[in-house]
């Protein structure tokens, strides 16, 4: 599962819907990370998705997974058009690509901050199924 996906995934328990703590999930520090270099850099997609990324959540999740070196504020780009970006900004987008898209969670656990339900990630696939009493 990509780090980008952790920025959208919330707890699937119905009673957590009304809570503010169901996102982001809390990721265990023992999780195994990997870098998947097969996905090509797509500047247009990153520009588009960056608007929607909740940066504080990225910082929190990256901190839990062992990277506390991220800036506290979301990087701002001068233009929404890839062709008008300078080299510096393209380099920044490349870094974001490595961080959000190429970094994948292979094994690990994630826990809802509200209900405390633990979801397991195996082979890069999180198991979001709920036991009958929660579904």
């Amino acid at each position, binding site marked *: 599962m990509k780090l980008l996906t952790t920025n959208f995934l919330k707890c699937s328990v119905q009673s957590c819907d009304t809570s503010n703590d169901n996102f982001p999930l809390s990721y265990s520090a023992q999780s195994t990370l990997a870098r998947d270099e097969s996905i090509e850099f797509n500047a247009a*997609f990153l520009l588009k998705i960056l608007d929607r990324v909740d940066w504080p959540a990225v910082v929190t999740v990256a901190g839990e997974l062992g990277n506390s070196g991220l800036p506290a504020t979301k990087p701002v780009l001068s233009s929404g058009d890839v062709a008008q970006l300078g080299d510096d900004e393209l380099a920044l987008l490349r870094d974001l690509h490595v961080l959000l898209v190429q970094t994948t969670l292979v094994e690990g656990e994630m826990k809802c901050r509200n209900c405390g339900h633990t979801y397991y990630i195996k082979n890069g696939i999180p198991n979001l199924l709920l036991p009958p009493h929660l579904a």
Partner: protein
Amino acid sequence: MSRPEELAPPEIFYNDSESKKYTESTRVQHIQAKMTLRALELLNIPDNSFILDIGCGSGLSGEILSEEGGHMWCGVDISPSMLATGLTRDLKGDLMLQDMGVGIPFRAGSFDAAISISAIQWLCNADTSYNDPKRRTMRFFNTLFAALKKGGKFVAQFYPKNDDQVDQILQAAKVAGFNGGLVIDDPESKKNKKFYLVLTSGSPNSQEEQVNLHGVTMDATELGEPMTNRARRTKRGKEIESSKSFINRKKELMRRRGRKVAQDSKFTGRKRRPRF
């Protein structure tokens, strides 16, 4: 034709051997690819979007999302075997094990669009004593509506068992706040008839982001009409339709389905005399 929906719940039906068979069958691949492309055409979204694939299985449809327009996608499916098959196929998107009837677990405004190929008819099944299809369908559409951005779109190809299932799904989508309806491709053909649920959440920002309904005949009302007509006719009995008009009607139907049909003449539907 047998419906897998009637045999077993999806996570049991799509076991290791069935998943492998499904993914490796070139016929299935061809049909899935065709339907995914058609769904993308209906979606009419700009390149490089973030898409949710509901019932992604082994990623047959996801592959096409990556190829066409460089979309990034996340897939959810309930069958572990299908996802395991997907792992071996070097997919670009993310896979997740989740039951769509429990909800789409993404925060509000996550996706530009959602797509679903041959999956949402499973919502109409009650596989366990505690799941209620109506509640699950409602939960699915409500959470999906939240997970899509404003003006987001959802196209789902599905195989309804009967008209009731179509109504049930359309009704739930409407209650959840979606606009849209049903597009039926090849309505005359029994085998190739395909149902696409085309929904938008809220109004799209500009004209060009509207769903692409080019070449779609607005059939919803037209299609309803002849059905009810025919029902009335059968209720009143056979007297209303002569055997000649019955033959002509069947010939016309077969012609529309593209079969080879004998030409009409003044002898069509006449009895052959014994002296002949």
